[in-house]
């Protein structure tokens, strides 16, 4: 028995692992773009040391084309670092699209979007599963498996009480100076904060604190945001390398999956070689779609010949704000150089019992970002701005705010063929209900009021266009209802019998908590059920 897996991202590698463990053969079909060979490597040295000694630092901080200097509409925090720019497909690489204000970032790179993810690895809460055809208990064993595969560090603190901590959690990362003070302030405030609906804890991150044969332990170089000098931060590439050592696994790069057809109890996948444009077909006993969003939906719609708005599918994304804050107790205080530059703390803010009203936030310290980028956000003369930010930098923290999202009539994705040449175009219409936007605004204000009590002063709220969070979900959703282009509780795509979905397309809503850990667990679960099905 062999299975074709389309895509190489976080979900695809987890599904492949599960299938191989169950004795199946896997061929992975992937566009698989990579960084240009001229892309410089990231030295395995600390941020401070590199900044004060490396004359070539511009290559990885600003990029050789200076793409790290944000002009025009690019806002601070809205761009991948130069060494990761290949992860997001350029306009020339992706299909033409009309998405309005919706920011649709797609990856064609080997390893997918998770090659540049923030490594947040939080499971959903029991009450997040309302729209799922299964519950937390069904997914918990797969969270556990994923946790062991990718290596998740975290603490069993207040946050762990709200989220079910996997057994395999590694010891937490060391906190940097401002975050340790902020967490201590939260703990001192104790019940008062929890009564306001605020739960704070160390971020659970797919960053290893324990060395293993395949992974490095975090070196606290404060360079993790800028690139991968080692393997401490999980990337699907690390799993791909392990998969490629397995003789039952084959990676077929440079191929675009076009459409599929079920023929005589098997699946035929039509592919196009990206270098030559040559078309061919691959056959297998089953197909796993894990080409991300909208890739998986595009392939499914094309396979069924469903073109036009009347055949649209849902799309969800986190409403997202980016909030630079000043942490007053850190003003004028020295900070340690030894730190990890990813999220330090996580916040869950639950204003009421409705899980769709919850906010998930990550707290970052601005330490290893570049000061000059902040100048863009402030209407100050640059000299004054540099002086001010240099003085305030150790006290600068960034809070990212994510809201849950549910599908709706105004949130749709479809493909359309142009009348002339038959060129396909992606379309997205994304209109949020004004009442929901207003409610989110009020919830954010309540969160900020709680943060102010801890000494963390929000300076400015930068609201981002929908899609900017680069979290998308729900285009081929798990559903108990037997409807075309939805997934069964096991992950099979209706109306097909041999096609399964193993990426965020299958999530029936977008939780406030970052979805990557959940989509990986769901991919494992879908692959498990697929293996059961093939065994029958």
């Amino acid at each position: 028995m062999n299975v074709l897996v389309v895509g190489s991202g976080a979900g695809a590698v987890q599904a492949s692992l599960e299938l191989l463990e169950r004795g199946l053969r896997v061929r992975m079909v992937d566009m698989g773009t990579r960084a240009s060979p001229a892309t410089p490597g990231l030295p395995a040295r600390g941020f401070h040391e590199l900044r004060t000694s490396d004359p070539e630092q511009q290559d990885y901080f600003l990029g050789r084309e200076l793409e790290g200097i944000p002009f025009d509409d690019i806002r601070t925090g809205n761009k991948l670092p130069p060494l990761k720019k290949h992860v997001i497909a350029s306009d020339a690489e992706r299909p033409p699209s009309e998405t309005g204000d919706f920011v649709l970032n797609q990856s064609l790179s080997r390893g997918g979007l998770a090659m540049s993810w923030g490594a947040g690895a939080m499971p959903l809460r029991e009450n997040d599963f309302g729209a799922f055809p299964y519950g937390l208990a069904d997914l918990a064993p797969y969270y556990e498996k994923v946790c062991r595969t990718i290596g998740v560090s975290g603490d069993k603190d207040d946050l762990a009480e709200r989220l079910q901590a996997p057994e395999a959690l590694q010891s937490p990362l060391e906190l940097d100076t401002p975050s340790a003070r902020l967490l201590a302030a939260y703990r001192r405030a104790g019940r008062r904060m929890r009564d306001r609906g605020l739960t704070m804890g160390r971020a659970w991150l797919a960053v290893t604190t324990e060395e293993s044969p395949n992974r490095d332990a975090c070196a606290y170089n404060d360079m993790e945001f800028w690139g991968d000098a080692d393997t401490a931060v999980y990337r699907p590439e690390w799993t791909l390398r392990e998969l490629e050592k397995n003789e039952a696994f084959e990676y077929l790069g440079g191929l675009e999956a076009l459409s599929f057809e079920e023929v005589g109890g098997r699946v035929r996948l039509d592919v196009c070689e990206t270098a030559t444009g040559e078309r061919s077909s691959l056959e297998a006993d089953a197909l796993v779609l894990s080409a991300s969003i909208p890739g998986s939906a595009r392939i499914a719609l094309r396979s069924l010949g469903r073109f036009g708005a009347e055949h649209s599918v849902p799309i969800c994304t986190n409403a997202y704000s980016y909030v630079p804050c000043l942490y007053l107790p850190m003003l004028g205080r020295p900070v340690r150089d030894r730190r990890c530059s990813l999220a330090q703390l996580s916040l869950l803010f639950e204003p009421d019992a409705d899980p769709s009203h919850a906010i998930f936030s990550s707290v970052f310290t601005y330490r290893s970002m570049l000061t000059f980028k902040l100048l863009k956000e402030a209407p100050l003369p640059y000299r004054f701005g540099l002086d001010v930010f240099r003085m305030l930098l150790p006290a600068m923290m960034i809070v990212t705010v994510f809201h849950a999202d549910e599908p709706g009539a105004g949130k749709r994705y479809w493909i359309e063929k142009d009348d002339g040449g038959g060129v396909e175009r992606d379309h997205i219409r994304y209109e949020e209900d004004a009442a929901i936007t207003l409610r989110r605004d009020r919830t954010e204000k309540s969160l900020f009021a709680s943060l102010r009590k801890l000494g963390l002063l929000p300076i400015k709220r930068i609201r981002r266009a929908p899609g900017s969070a680069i979290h998308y979900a729900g285009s081929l959703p798990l559903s108990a209802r037997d409807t075309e282009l939805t997934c069964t509780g096991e992950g099979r795509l209706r109306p097909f019998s041999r096609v399964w979905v193993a990426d965020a397309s299958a999530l029936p809503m977008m939780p406030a908590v970052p979805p990557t850990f959940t989509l990986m667990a769901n991919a494992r679960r879908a692959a498990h059920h697929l293996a059961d099905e093939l065994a029958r």
Partner: protein
Amino acid sequence: MADSDVARLGREVSSFTRYLVGRPPTQRLVLRYAEALATLGLAHPATAFDGRLLRTALVHPFATEMLDTACALLAKDSLLRRRLFVLAGLLETEPTFAELFVGQPPGRIRIAVGLLGAGTRAGLSFILGAPMLLALRWTS
């Protein structure tokens, strides 16, 4: 690039670097700045106003701060602001200037005095710079 252009760019980097960090530039920084302007399409003024603004800042280095302050509110996308922004990025990724950016912070009293001083100076700069900027904008 013509010799006169190189000399003009050298004077510009020198003037702007002293304005931003109070130190003279290195020769390497001048080269990086020239390359950056070419890469980012900022080598030539797109409008007559941008040209006048840059020339004024170059001929009267003391005016750079006032013009930058006025532009921060009244002409955010001016070439002067863009070039200063690029230079700030280059300065920050130059080891010679790194300690200005990654050093430990001053004490709270120095921060308070520094903010007060810088704020007062910025206010005065705006009062003086805004009429200059408007005059440059409306000069035919």
